[in-house]
């Protein structure tokens, strides 16, 4: 094998040198991300079930989650939904935590995936993710998460959740175009603007998640920038 020729002393030196560095984020050629319309979503969770079926998940772990938010006082009430799975962050918090290198980010499209075959179930990624994406699979004692259906992406299609959306309010696209409003998607109506963060969501500055929302008026967060 090729690595038999490596100089072990050099290896040790390299380890020493790099010890105090942080990891270097992968800069994808193009970052894919999600867009979800919080208002028009009927909250049917077809995306969730499609995801569970696709990924063969038992009840318990939920890669994708449609969250119901409500408020107001009878009869002046409001409700909306926020739909999130993995946000395939520009600088994912899960990735550097992984002691086995199971987590990786694709250069091609910025998809963050866990190769669960390498997972030892320490659950650090689950703790570190500000958006609750990594899910513990109890019967296998590993962590797994949304990989944007890379197999479907590679086949030129869209992920199962997007294809499941009955209201066409969930979509994927190049995140820069989604943010700029230049990507054609049924998730966003012509007059609607998207935001990076909605109420209750962790600060996007932590990891720069690749997701935008059409927010409900009661779900708008003032963009305070980095906290």
């Amino acid at each position, binding site marked *: 094998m090729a690595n038999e020729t490596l100089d072990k002393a050099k290896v040790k030196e390299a380890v020493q040198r790099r010890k105090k560095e*942080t*990891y270097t984020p992968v800069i994808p050629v193009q970052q894919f991300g999600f867009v979800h319309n919080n208002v028009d979503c009927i909250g049917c969770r077809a995306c969730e079930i499609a995801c569970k079926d696709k990924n063969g998940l038992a009840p318990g772990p939920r890669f994708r989650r449609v969250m119901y938010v409500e408020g107001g006082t009878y009869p002046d009430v409001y409700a909306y939904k926020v739909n999130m799975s993995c946000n395939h962050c520009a600088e994912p918090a899960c990735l550097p*935590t992984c002691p086995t290198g199971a987590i990786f980010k694709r250069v091609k499209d910025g998809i963050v995936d866990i190769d669960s075959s390498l997972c030892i179930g320490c659950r650090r990624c689950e703790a570190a993710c*500000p958006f609750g994406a990594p899910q513990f699979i109890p019967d*296998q004692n590993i962590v797994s998460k949304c990989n944007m259906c890379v197999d479907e992406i590679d086949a030129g299609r869209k992920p199962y959740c997007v294809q499941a959306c009955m209201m066409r309010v969930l979509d994927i696209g190049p995140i820069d175009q989604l943010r700029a409003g230049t990507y054609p998607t049924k998730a966003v109506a012509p007059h609607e603007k998207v935001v990076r963060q909605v109420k209750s969501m962790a*600060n996007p500055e932590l990891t720069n998640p690749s997701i935008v929302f059409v927010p409900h008026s009661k779900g708008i967060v003032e963009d305070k920038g980095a906290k």
Partner: protein
Amino acid sequence: MNANTDKWWVGVVAIILALVGGFSVHFMSDSNGAPAPAASNTSPKAQEAAAPSTPPTAPATQVAAATLVTNDYGRARYDPIHFKPAIDKATDADCLKCHQEVLDSKTRDASPAGLKKTDTLAWYQTLDTYAGEQMTFHQRHLTAPFIKKVATMSCTTCHQGNNPRDEVSGTSADSPTDLTMRKMVDPNLCLRCHGQFPYQNMGLPGPWHESGAAFQNNCLLCHVSIRTNRHKVNYLNAAAIEQEATANGGDSCYGCHGGRAWYRTSFPYPRHAWPGAGATVPDWAKDRPTESDLRFLIEGSKP
């Protein structure tokens, strides 16, 4: 699965790491059959870590005094202990009565593909402050020798309740508020020890691994006089941290201040006054509070 195949696998891991973090090198030596440097360089400290630790399990008498736990799972999920205000009074024993498994359950010895946990370390686990075998994050935060030395973490340090109905605030008229979507713990809490090293604020030319040498890899070189009033919160052992920093120089500080930076930002620590602090507040600190969060104040230190 035979041993030979195991080796193949480790090689595969190396490739991923090469891509992700550029840290292929030390794994290469492992796949060569040589002992992995970090895992085999068991320091005396690491041996201590391997010794059986005492998990913060309460004796049986104390458990009996805790909230009566029902066998009805639906009811258990809505036990008042999971919500404010009862959760503020919950002891670790109370929590562990049902959740003992967060300490008992172990990581896998090997990944499904056969990667042994003893054969793999992340870069931050090669820092001097990291010792002991792979644990789950709950164990690492509650029972690892180092954390027990420098901190007094309890379940409720991080956990402030959750919403069983949906993992977000506002799912019913009486659901808990101020929860972070899909999270059992507010990530801002994690940020305290897992944020970036804010070298710009300190006026350093670059990140610590570049500029550290110029300061003898010793944070206290400057910080012996700047912000001397450090770590005065109830979940940290300020004295032990100071001692650790004095003994180990930069590495121990860096362990929490950039060495395990999961996030892009740094925590905006409160700007406690310190002896000799100037009157002018730099721009980056203008919005910062001057006191820690109420619930982290050390008893008796403030009203």
